[in-house]
């Protein structure tokens, strides 16, 4: 059985079939990229998996558990984290508190304990803080620890999105266009980090990406979508040569 799989996933907005009977599987420890022209349904698939949208039909399984009915916040508790294409950070908070929100699924303290800030809460906070610091170190975010997000440049925010997702200690991470808006060097950094996430942290990666250089460098497998349907699936080179994919990008 696959680690993560979507079966006949569909999302219809009235007559528009944003996602149309898409099936795919992600093996544990691999990096799978979804590519496709604008409006192909890539982000819709992400929003289905992270349960922001309800699928019209189809089912989603993670570790052989049906998560189609799971509420959106339950997905994170199962170990699936995501980033957003249009950065969704907590703007009026510092980098540290943004990352600490990522630790939310690991918090065990009760409200009354927190009101009194009992030693148990403090001990937990220190553990969270230590884990956050490891992520900060992994992604080289040290200079920005106490900075407000609203004052940080776009490239840094993009990395913080990734950091916040990593703070949840996910098993599967969904990256929605991790390199959009980044310059060449930042994209380079991003590709190393995505590789490291797989090799060092053992995280399975599912990502949507337009930058084919990045896709080629990091992906184990690629899925090409158009009009909500799967065009091709396979290694990056295979998919890029596939006649349907060429037609979708360049026109027949």
């Amino acid at each position: 059985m696959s680690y993560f799989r979507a079966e006949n996933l569909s999302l219809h907005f009235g007559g528009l079939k944003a996602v149309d009977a898409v099936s795919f599987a992600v093996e544990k420890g691999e990096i799978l990229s979804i590519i496709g022209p604008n409006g192909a349904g890539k982000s819709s698939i992400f929003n289905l998996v992270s349960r922001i949208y309800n699928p019209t039909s189809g089912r989603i399984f993670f570790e052989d558990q049906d998560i189609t009915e799971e509420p959106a916040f339950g997905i994170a508790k199962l170990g699936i984290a995501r980033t957003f294409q249009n950065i969704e950070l907590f703007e009026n908070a510092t980098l540290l508190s943004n990352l600490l929100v990522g630790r939310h699924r690991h918090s065990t303290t009760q409200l009354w304990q927190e009101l009194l800030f009992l030693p148990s809460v403090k001990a937990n906070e220190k553990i969270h803080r230590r884990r956050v610091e490891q992520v900060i170190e992994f992604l080289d975010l040290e200079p920005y620890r106490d900075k407000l997000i609203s004052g940080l440049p776009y490239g840094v925010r993009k990395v913080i999105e990734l950091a916040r997702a990593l703070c949840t200690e996910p098993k599967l991470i969904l990256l929605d266009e991790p390199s959009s808006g980044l310059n060449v060097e930042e994209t380079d950094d991003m590709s190393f980090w995505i590789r490291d996430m797989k090799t060092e942290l053992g995280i399975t990666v599912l990502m949507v990406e337009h930058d084919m250089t990045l896709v080629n460098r990091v992906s184990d497998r690629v899925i090409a979508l158009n009009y909500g349907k799967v065009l091709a699936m396979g290694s990056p080179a295979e998919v890029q040569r596939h006649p349907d994919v060429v037609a979708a990008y360049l026109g027949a």
Partner: protein
Amino acid sequence: MRFMFKTDYEDDIKLFPHGGYIVTYGVLLAFLVVAPFILSSYLVSQLVFVFIYATVGVGLMILTGFTGQASLGHAAFLAIGAYTAAYLQQYNVPFPVYFLVAGVLTGAVGAMVGFPALRLQGIYLVIATISFAFIIEEILARWESVTHGNEGMRVKALQFLGTTVSRDSPSFYFLCLAVLTLTIVGTLNLLRSPTGRAFVAIRDSETAARSMGVNVSLYKVKSFAISAAITGFAGVLFAHKLSFISPEMFTLQLSIEFIIVILIGGAFSPHGAVLGAIFIVMIDPFLTYLKDDVPGMIAAVAATFGAGAATAAKIQSNVAAFASANGLKGAIYGVIIVLFVLFEPLGLYGRWLKIKLFFQLFPLYKRATFKRQKIYVKSERNR
């Protein structure tokens, strides 16, 4: 300029980041402890009102400032707390019991308001909370067997451990101070733990909060409940301080006053609630001053500039009519809100932070530090 050298994760968690804070808050506390014995009874009474308003302000701040859910219904929560106290007092329930019951009951009502509020955002939530406040006001006026309707209810002096604590006594002052202090400390504790961070996350981006595993509905209801409970506790003190309560005290105007408290003080820190409370409590003495002294002063100035006695008297009566006009208070509130939203969105405490930073960084302070930046538009479609 002070450089903080952090050697332990605890340095990020502490309430007082460095010794200077302990000194300043120690001095403030020392002043507040001796205040009822050195200040006039009028000022002490005003301070008690500041404490009560600040407590409500902190409660409202949890909901509006930190969770981002606006409410114009907090007068109703205050009323529920006050009426619970007045009602239970008739049956000789001891103070600690009805104090707790009032808080818990108001918190439960807050949670009940929180549930329908889950589907509402922004202005619609404001409308919903206003209607809730009107419903409560109406219930208070009509449910005569419990609330005595528009006749109002007398609230007897507070009985605690066999002694009577009069509403003007230092003991009552210390009770209010203690409630405010505990509220502030509890709020600060909440903010440095997972619940408080979840609140802030909901305020800034619900979608992101959800995908980080925050149960948004649960935390919104929690925020409503905590906010209402704090206001309920304040309501008990409010009832005792006024010693008489009636439905027309808990109107929309009171809710607006609470919003002004956090808006003027700065809705992002309990400091703001205290500063805002001082401001709002000072409005009434200011209006009295406007009514009693200002017309005469203006007439005197007019007379020195050569206005005849008749003209001066006319000016005086005109100014007096203006100063004692109905609705002047509301108009002043409106002007204040508009001016603060436009020119000082971070409130008085924000202004204080700016002044502090100016001197810390002198001569390198730049005005853009506090400028709100909106560079990238977030996606609205996933709300």
